């Protein structure tokens, strides 16, 4: 509620400024960063790669709908925003859009008729795309995608969010950065990774905290807040830099495995990240996932080795890890079979230990470790509660085609027990996060049953 009021206040202020601007300044499109020759041709597969890396399909396709024909509901703090048809259908899609129209939508957030897009469309990040990739994507959408006639659903947010001119003012605050990409020049791999992270992959849209105006608090590594962790729809998008980052202890190889397959020696992808893996990252070449991993590891100046491939084919046998120093006491308690052990530990033994083990280290590639797990120790507790109640699912990917599904315990554990278990998990093996209240469990359970 507090955040909401803050947003509201911010937007009202923004609205007043924008109103004045709206009167005096005409809408101007950003100029292209590079002039491409008229006969410029994208390399084979470039357009599709941009489409995949940009994760366009995930948002622009509804559950039962045709690919890229829009109609997916995007939940936002302001209400539901419906994604649009971006197939080349002239009536309902973008078939009549010129390349300049398309670029303006991608980097200025403005449609050909001057309507401002809601920033659920991450044009803050796509603004950093190269002109070549922009053209490749445009050409791909126009020539390789079948037009689908599917009328867009109107997005009807409540006042004041239905006043799209307000976004124009918001853009003045959010789009202060120049269009186009500036590589840091560290190494080819890291530069490629930087580009994918900052621009196409729009990682910052979730992993960078939002400022007072709900804009990303920095869209490049020059900002200290960039990728410092955000909260999206009640989920922690963990920090990807700094000593507290969950990926701090991961190698480039492990991080690239996670991106390509949704699973690695430490963790598995859940929630939004599972969708990103499923719809986008698993389709990228190994070199791109390695590049992303190298860039992220390099942000903190860590040394690393570049692997040659991602998620190699089996047979691969990997023993599970033993408890480390931080986790030793918990592991000892769990295997003591002491009838006086705390209820949380007992619940863990009865329900979780079989897969995640006394060490809390899980099993590499299949059962995530719970020690230091961002979902376990995050500021947001509803994802952890939801996983305990409803289970979780890692989608099949090209290199790891197994669906990894954990069953839920909603029928087996009461709200009090889930709270007890979640609280215990957040303090076990050296984890140091706050308690979970039964009321929070009840809230997640109720919202699930309302679906």
């Amino acid at each position, binding site marked *: 509620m507090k955040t909401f009021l803050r947003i509201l206040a911010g937007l009202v202020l923004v609205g007043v400024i924008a109103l004045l601007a709206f009167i005096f300044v005409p809408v101007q499109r950003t100029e292209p960063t590079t002039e491409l020759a008229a006969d410029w041709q994208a390399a084979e597969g470039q357009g599709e790669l941009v489409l995949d890396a940009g994760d366009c399909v995930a948002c622009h396709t509804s559950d039962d709908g045709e690919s890229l024909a829009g109609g997916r509901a995007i939940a936002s703090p302001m209400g539901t925003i419906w994604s649009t048809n971006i197939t080349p259908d002239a009536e309902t899609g973008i078939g009549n859009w010129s390349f300049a129209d398309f670029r303006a939508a991608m980097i200025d957030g403005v449609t050909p008729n001057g309507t401002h897009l809601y920033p659920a469309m991450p044009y803050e990040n796509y603004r950093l795309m190269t002109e070549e990739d922009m053209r490749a994507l445009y050409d791909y959408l126009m020539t390789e995608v079948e037009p689908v006639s599917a009328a867009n659903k109107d997005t009807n947010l409540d006042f004041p969010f239905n006043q799209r001119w307000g976004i124009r003012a918001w853009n003045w605050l959010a789009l202060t950065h120049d269009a186009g990409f500036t590589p840091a020049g560290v190494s080819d791999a890291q530069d490629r990774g930087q580009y994918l992270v900052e621009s196409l992959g729009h990682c910052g849209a979730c992993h960078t905290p939002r400022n007072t105006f709900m804009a990303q608090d920095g869209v490049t590594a020059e900002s200290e807040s960039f990728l410092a962790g955000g909260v999206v729809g009640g989920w922690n998008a963990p920090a990807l830099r700094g000593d507290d980052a969950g990926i701090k202890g991961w190698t480039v190889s492990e991080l690239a495995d996670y991106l390509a397959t949704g699973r690695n020696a430490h963790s598995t992808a859940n929630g939004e990240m599972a969708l990103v893996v499923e719809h986008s990252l698993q389709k990228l070449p190994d070199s791109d996932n390695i590049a992303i991993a190298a860039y992220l590891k390099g942000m903190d100046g860590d040394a690393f080795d570049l692997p040659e491939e991602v998620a190699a084919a089996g*047979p*691969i046998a*990997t023993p599970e890890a033993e408890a480390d120093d931080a986790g030793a006491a918990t592991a000892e308690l769990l295997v003591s079979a002491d009838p006086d052990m705390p209820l949380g530990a007992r619940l863990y033994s009865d329900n979780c230990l079989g897969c995640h083990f006394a060490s809390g280290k899980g099993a590499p590639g299949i059962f995530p470790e719970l020690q230091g797990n961002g979902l376990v120790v995050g500021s947001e507790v509803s994802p952890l509660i939801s996983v305990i109640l409803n289970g979780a699912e890692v989608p099949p990917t090209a290199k790891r*085609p197994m669906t*990894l599904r954990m*069953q839920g315990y909603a029928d087996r554990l009461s709200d009090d027990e889930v709270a007890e278990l979640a609280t215990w998990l957040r303090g076990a093996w050296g984890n140091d996060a706050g308690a979970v209240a039964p009321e929070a469990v009840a809230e997640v359970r109720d919202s699930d049953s309302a679906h």
Partner: protein
Amino acid sequence: MARTEPKKDVVIVGLGWTGSIAGIELAQEGLDIVALERGHDQNTVPNFEYPQQIDELKYGVRVKMMQKPSQQTLTVRRSGDETALPYRSLGSFLPGNGVGGAGTHWNGLNWRPMPEELRLRSYVTENWGEDIIPEGMTIGDYPVSYDELEPFFTQFEKVAGIAGKAGNLNGEIQEGGNPFEGWRSEEFPMPAHKPTFDSAKFGEAASAMGYHPFTASAGIASTSYTNPYGMQMGPCNFCGFCERFGCYQYSKSSPQTAILGALKQYPNFEYRTNSEVLKIETAPDGQTATGVTYWDEEAQEEVFQPADIVILSSYQLNNVHLMLLSGIGGPVYDPVTGEGVLGKNYAYQMNGGVSMFFEDEQFNPFVGHGANGIALDDFAINQNDFGALGFIGGSYWRSGTFNGQPIRSMRLPSGTPAWGAGWKEGIKKWYGHSMSIGSHGSHMAYANNHLDLDPTYTDRHGRPLMRMTFNWQDNDLRMNQYMKSKMEPLAASMNPDLMQSGFKGPGAQYDVRPYQTTHNTGGHIMSTNAREGSVNRYSQAWDKHNVFVMGAGNFVQNTQYNPTGLVGGLAYHTVNAIRTQYLSNPRPLV
């Protein structure tokens, strides 16, 4: 005929281990494939999920994962003199049901046969002469050798994720492995499991007697595992719910953990459940099959599925039944004249064991897994002097808790009351204080033991049931008694307070009621020519070159081991032949 589906390149009958193997390997060739599965679809979650799955009453006692006799069964008799009656209540063997088939509910005991077992008749003849083969024993040589199958055993073990320690690497005997096994080109893909207390105790006693114990190979993950298809297993937690259960832990080797997820990624593969194949249809010229007719349970109608290649990959009993009903696999075997091939050499397994009770030893009977244990092959087929011993055969021994389930694992000294206060007293005293050693023995092929169609009983589709004629034979019973005479001294050397043996002896008659083993073999056996068997060395039907028949029905006689390793190796051998020889030029490959 109510409906005809569009033609496919391949139709697969039954989506268990071998159907999945055929599916993925042929999908890689870009062929358009449909698999028809009689049962339901099933996945680890939700079908095997914790804790619902570890319900011993439901799955262990009431065997809910298995085929229902009302759905499909057979009739059983012990000899031609008896009238066969329907197997109305599951007992002696438990055919599976649903996607994954028996591969979902097995114990994970994966063994290769011994090289000698695949050329048994020659091995016997060369060493002891034809004369020691008793009258009525119909053993033969497999038309494919161990050396030829070795790469395919290795391939299956990588896919299935088998844990163990090699005993013979390219002819070099390895410390810690089975020194009597056939050669392996590579080490196991996963390390051997740690032993439980009972198996360690057995291993020590066996070593003290000069035997050669080793950790049994296991289709149970000892580590996290990724196979060549990218499919995964999680390390086993020794909960002891393997046989008769699906594994909630992703730890047991199964089509679900090893193949199906990868297979479903192929857009050229589809599968239909609740689709029971009734008959394989034959072209007018009789040279090939045209597809299969199946019963669509949902639509309640018969469907014809045309296809260029038919892969029969249902359970052994069902494969033979379908062939009998469809007139595929050669003339039906007649035990009186010895003529005919289809239904010939049905074989089983000859098992026994010793239980030991120790008042002062504490075993944890709830800790184990289906393939747990220390084993030895000192009394195996290639170690026994058949001439001197007076039987042909052998067994492997194993000790280790493989069933952690409370209801069926309460071993009690004989004479303990089966209910009431005496039973309670017995349980109180002995629960957790006993262990056992098992002998898992070979079963030869005999003229008496065969499969054909029943003259009286029909199934719900009006088709004749299959009839099994089977009884124990002296040769195998003598082998079993020999194992008893060797195992009892070993058990006694461990100084138990009580011990008792369970080995069938002379005159034992087959009883279909108590559970024994689901290792039903033979019936569409492999052979070097069409006069001796139903399929050739590539499991290709001699009489219909576009029909390939997977599974243990190919076994000329049963080996002393659990059949899955040989079934998997043969399946990869067959699909390799289809890929490299058949597709480019469809014809009889022999």
